[in-house]
Every structure is written in C-alpha cells, then in structure tokens.
C-alpha cells in the first residue's frame, strides 16, 4: 500500500512501453483484432464559407494504446473526438470504430465505448445514485464494485442533486459513469479541467489501473501537460486540421533537441519547427555538428510549442 501511495506506478510502466502501442502493459491482450479507431481522410467544418477544422486527417489507434491529444485552443480537438465517436458527420473521409462505421455502430460496439465530454450531460434533477442506476440498465456489463469504490474514494455526494454538485464533483461523476461499464475504448475530452490536483491524481491513478487491468484504449485531450507526461505513452499533436505527429512520448523527448548556432542547419534529422535561430529537430546527427552548435534537451512543453 505504501509503495502504491508513493506513486511509482505513474512512471514505471511507461518506461517499458513499446513504441507501437504499449500492448505489453496490460495483463492480457485484447482478443478483438479490429482497430478501436481508424480514421481516413477526415474532413470537417462548421460552415461552407469557413475553412474546415479538420482537413483530410488520418489517424489510427491500436488496441491498448494510451494517446494524449494535444493542440492549441480552437485546433479542433473536441471536434475530432466527437467525429471519431460518430457524433459529427464528416464532410469527407471515414471513421471506423472496432471495424464499424462510426455513425452506424451497433449496441455491441456502443457497450465498448466510454466517453467523458468536455461539457457535462448529466441529468441535473437526479442524484448520483439515481443517475448511475439509469445507465446501469442499458449496459450488459457494469462493475458495481468499482462504482461503489470510486464514489467512496472520490467522495462524490450520492444523495445530492447533480445540479447542486460543484463542477469538479460533476466531472468525477461523469468519469465514474464512463468507467463503470469497463469500456474497451475510453475517449476523454479535457476530463481533468475542473479537478483539483488531488482529484487529478486520483483520476490518473484510476486511468492507469484501467489500462493495466483491461488493456483499454484511451484517447485523452488535455492542456495540463504534466498529467499527460504521467499517463500518455503516446502523444499526438493536432495542427492545421491534421495529426502533425504521433509518437511515444519518451521516444520524442529522447530524440528531439533544440539546436542553435553555426552548423545547426546541417542537423541531418527531421526539422519539426523553427523559432528564429532555434531549430526543433528530431533525431539530429549530433556527432556531425560543430562544437559551437548549442544543443539543448526538450520538454513536452517545448514539443507543444513547436508542434501544436
């Protein structure tokens, strides 16, 4: 128990993640070989005379992958997550969830998806217990023990009207609702925005447990980069309507460097971004650079600055 509280579990599994998917993280690999999410040439906009938010986006998520979706405000993260779930009709392209068109999924696929939206859609006139009973009646699988445990651990008032709960408490309830039926695909749109630091820590712990136990595929959008560093084995940067880059976070941080000074242009790697004289380069050939070239390690924040 004490080792659990020291939160070593936050970092340990990520170190051992394979670049592709992190499939080795959970006890048993999912038996379903169909991709949880496959997006091809997704194009979506809100008005005919406005530039589309998503422009021919291609994206694939492997089973058991945990992906942090990063992008600036207005980049289209929520739009992408909604389109990915079939809640928005694309102008072009196709989205498939577990091998079915996202707009026409059947009940079996529905039961495998958990979603925490940015804006709560809970019934405000009910209390937490009534709300969970409502959803329990629809799902073939429902982990009552987990629900009870989370309600108790996260101190969600069970007999108070949802409309009278604080924003953070509503967010916790929304997360419990999404986890209760043990989904295979969990889509989280800024789930920790209303949570305090302890709430965020509890949520992340639960998320990691879910991934370790069940091999759940998770897509998580957030602006809190420190949280993403703790749980996201992969990060995807959304810019100009496309996934600009997706890679394991450790790999990116190990491979990318800031380069500045004479010879920086002959880096021999992949130029990701340029800020005046500073270059953000992936896998530069460091041995070939002159000694005067300034080489600096990067953080996730640097990557966000350069790629999002």
């Amino acid at each position: 128990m004490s080792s659990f509280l020291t939160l070593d579990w936050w970092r340990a599994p990520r170190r051992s993640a394979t670049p592709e998917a992190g499939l080795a993280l959970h006890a048993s690999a999912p038996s379903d070989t169909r991709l949880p999410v496959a997006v091809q040439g997704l194009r979506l906009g809100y008005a005919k005379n406005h530039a589309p938010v998503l422009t021919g986006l291609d994206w694939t998520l492997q089973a058991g992958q945990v992906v942090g979706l990063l992008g600036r405000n207005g980049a289209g993260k929520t739009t992408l997550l909604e389109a990915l779930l079939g809640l928005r009709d694309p102008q072009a392209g196709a989205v498939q969830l577990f091998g079915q068109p996202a707009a026409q999924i059947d009940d079996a696929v529905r039961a495998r998806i958990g979603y925490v939206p940015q804006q709560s859609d809970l019934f405000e006139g009910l209390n937490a217990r009534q709300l969970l009973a409502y959803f329990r009646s629809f799902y073939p699988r429902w982990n009552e023990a987990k629900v009870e445990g989370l309600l108790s651990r996260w101190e969600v008032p069970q007999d108070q009207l949802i409309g009278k709960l604080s924003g953070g408490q509503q967010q916790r309830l929304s997360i419990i609702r999404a986890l209760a039926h043990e989904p295979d695909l969990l889509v989280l749109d800024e789930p920790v925005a209303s949570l305090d630091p302890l709430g965020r820590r509890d949520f992340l712990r639960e998320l990691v447990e879910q991934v370790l136990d069940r091999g759940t595929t998770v897509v998580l959008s957030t602006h809190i980069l420190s949280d993403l560093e703790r749980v996201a084995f992969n990060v995807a940067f959304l810019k100009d309507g496309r996934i600009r880059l997706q890679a394991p976070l450790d790999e990116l941080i190990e491979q990318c460097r800031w380069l500045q000074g004479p010879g920086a242009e002959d880096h021999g790697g992949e130029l990701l971004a340029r800020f005046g004289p500073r270059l953000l380069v992936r896998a530069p050939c460091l041995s070939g650079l002159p000694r005067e070239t300034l080489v600096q390690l990067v953080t996730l924040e640097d990557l966000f600055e350069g790629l999002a």
Partner: protein
Amino acid sequence: MGAAFKPTQQRALLGQPWQAWRNQAQWRRTLATLATLASPVLLLGYWQSAHPLTVLGALLSLWLVVGWAAFSQLLLRQNTPRLAHLVPGQARSLVQAFLLWAALFVLALCGALSLWDGWHPAWPLLALGVLVLLGWMGREPWLWVAIWFVIGPLVPALRPITAWLTALPATTGWLLYALAALLALGLLPACMGRGDARHQRAYQRRLRWSAQLEAHSQGRGVAARVQLPWMARLGLLFTWPHRLWWARLVRNPASTPLARLNVQLMRGPAHGTVQLWLLCVALVMMVLVLGGLTRRDTLEHTLTVTAGMWIGLLSLAMGPSMQRAQALCRDRPDQALLVLLPGLPQGAALARALARRWLLQALLAWAFVVLLFLLVAPQISAQRAATAAAFLAACLPIALGDLRRCDRLPARLSAGGFNAWIPVALVAGLVGWWTQIPPALSLGGSVLLCGALGWRRWQALADAGPPLPAGRASER
C-alpha cells in the same frame, strides 16, 4: 442485444423524470398548474350549469393534453444525440416508451372526450393528432411560434373544412381517416432522434430555440452564441430603444451609476425603454383597430372577441415585474462585477433605489393600461367593464414583486410564480363578471390594498442586505 422490449430499461427511462420530479419537490408547482387549468373549466361548468360528467370530461381532456405535453418533453430531454448514439439501446427504448405511452394517452383522451361530448369516431384521430403535434412541438420549439400564425387563419376555416369532410362519401372519408392515422403513426416515433447527424442538427436547433424562448419569457437578452441570426435582427425591432438608451448613458458622463447598473441588469423587454416602446406599438395597433369601428355593438363585439388584447397589454405591462427575479438569478456573475461600479449606493440604499425604479416602471405601465381601459369603458356594457376592471385590479399586486428583497431570492427560480397568478386573475375576472362590481370600487380597492402592502414592504427594505448578487442571503 436485439430490439426486444426491456422492462428494466423502460423503468429507468420512466424513473428518470419521476425521480427528478420528486427530488426537486415540484409537487407544489404541479398542483398550481393543475389548479390553473381546472379553475376556468370548473367555473365555466358551474356558470353554464353543465352536467358534472361533462365538466369532468373537459377537465380530464385538458389535463391529459397538458400531461402529454409535459411527459413527452421529459422523454425528449433524455433523447440527446450523445446518449442516443453511445448508450446501447437507449434510443430504441425511448421510442418504445414513447409509442407505448402515446397509445395509453390516446385511449385515455378518447375516454375523456367521450365523457365530455359523447363518443365520436373522430376522437381517436383527433387525440392522436394532438399527441403528435405536441410531441413535435417538444422536438422543434419553433412550432410553438409557427402555430400562432396557423391558428388564426385555421379557426375561420374549421367550419368549411368540417362541412366538406361531412359531405364526403363514407368510403372516401374512411380512406382519408386511415391515411391521416397512418401519417400520424409514422410521425410519432420520428420525434425521437437516433443519434445521427439529423438528430444532432435538430438537437442544436432545439437548444437554440429553447434558449431564445426561455430568455424571452424571462425578459432578458440571449447570449450571442445561441442566438439565431435572423431572430437577432428581428429582435432589434423591439429592443432598439434599449441599445439607444445604453449608448446615451455611455456617452453621457453625467449619467448616474444606478441608471448604468439598471441598463445592464434589465436587458430586453424588462427595461423601461423597451416596455414603453412595446406599449406604444400596442396602443397604435389598438387605435387602428378600434378607430375604424363606429357602431357600438361592433366595438363591443370586437372588445369581447379580443379579450386577448387586454391580457396581452397586461402581460406587456406587468411582465417585467414577473420576470425580474428570474432575470436577476440568471445574471449573478455579471452583478458581482456591476455592484463594484464607483458611485453606486450600497446595502439597503441600493436595494431601495432599485426597488423604487422598478416599482415606478411597473406602476406607470399599469396606469397606462388602466387609462386605455377608462377610455373604452364607456363604450362597453357594465358587465364587461366590471370583468375587465376586476382583471386589471387583480394584476396590480404583481408590481409588489419589485419590492422583494433581492438578497433573499432563492438560488433557483421556476416559472411557478407566473403560473400561480393566472388563476387568481382569471377568477377575479369571473367574479367581476358575476357580481358586476363597479370598476371604481375594484380598481380603487386594489390600489388601497397594494398601497398598504407596498408600504410595509418598503419599510422592510430598510433592513435589507446588499441586494446584488441576487440570492446571496438565500440557502443554496
């Protein structure tokens, strides 16, 4: 996970509104609504010495229609695109519940209509048609507005349509009947969306319209992000005085902070300038309609037929007082900033200053309508004058709402206050009709009574805490 009927899911779907109703202790509001609906029916039945079963049939029919409107709305609220698309079986179960309960309501409504006016083969189709219409009005709130434009031309056309239907050969009549029933049966389940793009669009439209209608009913402006563009332009026809007044206050450095506060708090029809403009428009329309009538019987007939005119005028006059509390409760974050305006009186002084301003606005508006009434009163019969005067007198106490302590407003307000007042004013009008109380007596009595009550409330305001943000002294 087939398309089977699942009782557990049905229980959850029906339990949701029931639990919400119980949790929010809405029984008082429900009783008030039932009483509001019952009072005119019971009074009319009593006045016409109708058979008790006839009255019961009319009352049940009315309750069932309103009950279906509320029930279908509660089911529709669960029909969000997100839940319909992502929760297994939810949309399908909702459609099943909707159809099952519609069938029960049709049966009950046919029974109630038969009690009222005997059995008629048209009852099932009529009941089904009403249920479909109300269901769609819940899904597409713009139908509430459109229906007003349809009702007018439809009423005079009802008689020829009925005559045409009656003259049809029996076979053709039944064929039309069956076609109409099929159409209604097809439209009924289509009320519920399946979580697809069409549902998403309809849902967004519904949210926008609901926001518009809710904002209008509360006398406040609508957030730009939810406002329909053409409605914003249309709204300018009515709200331009507010914008003009606002611009004038901003330009004028000598304008008082209280006036600046008021123009921000009372947006839309709740502001005095907009109210004055709307009353002027109504007056011009009245003059145009009544000015063309010369004969006394035509004038009296018109005033009787257009009883809605008085109700409309009084709604314009007293609406802001009824909506003020709701408008204040909705804008609490703004108020927290506005009370920091330099130069504003604080505490009880601010409470009294706002109350004085709002009360004066309400009294002037009421006096305006009374003046109009006094101008036309000599042209109508004593009985009708007594009815209108009693109705007017019963509406004056609404103005006392402006003297309430804003700091003690409840955290959440419903439209219950408005509902509760409708039967009071209607009963007052009917009492005026029967007893023929002289207008001077009913109006004078109301003024005296409200004066006494208002004075007490005014004194109580001396101990009031800071009024804004509204509801700060209430329990959460």
